[in-house]
């Protein structure tokens, strides 16, 4: 018959055992507080932008004013903490330079709607600031959602006009027409005619695109922290001209843009987020240390 082990009371537990028995709800509460409280007390942190983000910032600034780029937007609200900031700063930089953009998605059917809402928000902000609104059709067009990233990449590489041949879009209140009649795409005959191809994603869709046409057009990437290390390979190989990875990437891009053009970014919001990230990572490191110290002390106290 097995021996029944009485659970130890808090008083009889050693320090090591106490460290090992922190209840899950306490950990979760600490995490909630660590991520939520800093949002209310944004503090500017010292920041040295990474070389990948510096390169992307330079590459976007090198895009000729009023030329055309394609943005592949493959993110939804699930990665909004990182991806929305990435897309936000990218659009602000492009709008500052009056660069026209066409937008497509190849990872999630929800992505076009999420992107559209962000453009509307930025336009509302520009209207308040008495800046020129970015007009659908004249300044940007939608190329739609493609459920197969591989097929889209292959088609763009072979013949960009063929890839989007059936796509139509319309100015607000106007009739829809083929996208290649729009001021955005009328001069684009092959993929080389684009000033840049930018991918904002939380998935591998950027790698599918790089593998198919990074030799034909300058490419830039804005990815989540999880995708950062894998995508960085393509930056160091020269296939990506720049890369912004994770929340740090957003903060880097905003900091660089804010230095060059003060007052044009949402740096305040990113300061809130980056502080939350700092506290959360410190908490993670503390959790690892506490767990390991607990194990060490428990082992040492055993006869």
């Amino acid at each position, binding site marked *: 018959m097995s021996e029944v082990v009485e659970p130890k009371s808090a008083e009889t537990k050693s320090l090591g055992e106490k460290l090992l028995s922190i209840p899950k709800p306490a950990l979760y509460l600490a995490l909630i507080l660590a991520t939520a409280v800093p949002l209310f007390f944004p503090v500017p942190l010292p920041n040295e932008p990474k070389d990948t983000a510096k390169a992307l910032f330079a590459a976007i600034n090198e895009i000729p004013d009023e030329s055309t780029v394609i943005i592949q937007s493959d993110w939804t609200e699930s990665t909004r903490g990182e991806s929305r900031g990435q897309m936000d700063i990218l659009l602000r930089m492009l709008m500052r330079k009056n660069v026209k953009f066409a937008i497509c998605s190849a990872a999630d059917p929800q992505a076009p709607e999420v992107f559209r809402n962000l453009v*509307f928000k930025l336009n509302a902000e520009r209207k308040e600031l008495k800046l020129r609104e970015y007009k659908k059709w004249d300044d940007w067009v939608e190329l739609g959602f493609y459920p197969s990233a591989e097929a889209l990449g292959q088609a763009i590489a072979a013949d960009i006009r063929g890839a989007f041949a059936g796509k139509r879009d319309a100015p607000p209140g106007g009739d829809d027409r083929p996208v290649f009649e729009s001021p955005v795409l009328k001069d684009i005959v092959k993929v080389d005619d684009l000033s840049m191809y930018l991918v904002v994603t939380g998935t591998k869709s950027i790698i599918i695109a790089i593998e198919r046409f990074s030799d034909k057009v300058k490419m830039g990437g804005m990815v989540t922290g999880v995708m950062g290390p894998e995508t960085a390979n393509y930056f160091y190989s020269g296939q990506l001209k720049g890369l912004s990875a994770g929340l740090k990437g957003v903060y880097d891009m905003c900091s660089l843009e804010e230095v060059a053009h003060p007052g044009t970014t949402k740096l305040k919001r990113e300061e809130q987020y980056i502080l939350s990230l700092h506290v959360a990572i410190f908490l993670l490191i503390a959790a*690892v240390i506490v767990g390991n110290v607990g194990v060490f002390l428990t082992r040492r106290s055993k006869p």
Partner: protein
Amino acid sequence: MFDIIAQTAPRVNFWSAEPGSPKLWGGIFIAIVIGVAFIFACLNLPTNYRRPLIATLTFIAGLFFVMSFVWPKSEGRAPDTLPNGGVEAVAWWLQDATGPISNITTILTAFLLGLGAFSMLRVHIGKLVKQQKDWGFSVVLLLSMATMMFIGYWDWRTVSFTMKDTNFSDPSNWVTATYAKDLVFDGILQKMDAAMFSVIAFYIMSAAYRAFRIRSVEATVLLVSALIVMMSLLALGDMMSNKLIGNFTGGAKDHFMENFTLSEIYGFIRAAFQTPSIRAIDFGIGVGAMAMGLRLWLSLDKTGGTN
């Protein structure tokens, strides 16, 4: 209705024709005849012929992508010119075909969405009819799906047809359909999506506390590397290490100790271990995918194509 999907000025080649031209209607007719014949062939062929038929079609489909990868590319193709020899003619044909074939691939992939929806409906309607365990959740799912479809369609009709002259990018022009879509898509679905993803943070926290243990030399190396990489993500950690080393070296940038700032150590880990490891894994995955692709293309798998 067909104006929505029609190209107004397609480039005329083997794969496309002028709208309304006899060539276009002829092509559509031939495509329908071939499609119907293929379906009948699949349904009525003796079992032992099915596998060769599927294998042949798989090979032809795969051959196109292999050809477009290995066949010499034509540079500087101008409109209204003829190809310079057979090699260039094939290159042009492949180039023209890529768009339509990618469209076919996209359409086939899109069918998966329909297949998924059908499968989900079948499972949950069955559960509801038989009143199986947790059938209440099936009711919620079916109602949510129907509501989202109805409101999505209503919004699309309003924005694209009934009020197409209205600028809906300005919220002051919104109508009931736009508000309804905003509520269910942006207000509920998207927020739930974000909330579900954020739950991962709690799992990471729990795993960091309970599972990330120093149990061996390898685990210790992994733990120390992870801590360095995590610290390097923090601007504050980077600054503190720079300051600490700077105090030691007196600000001399060529001092040996400058190699031990957090960013330098992380740079070493990234360049010497992380990047090469990921490349090696990617090469492995690539070789594996090629082997699997060859097996599928040449129908070397023993299953499939029969009963």
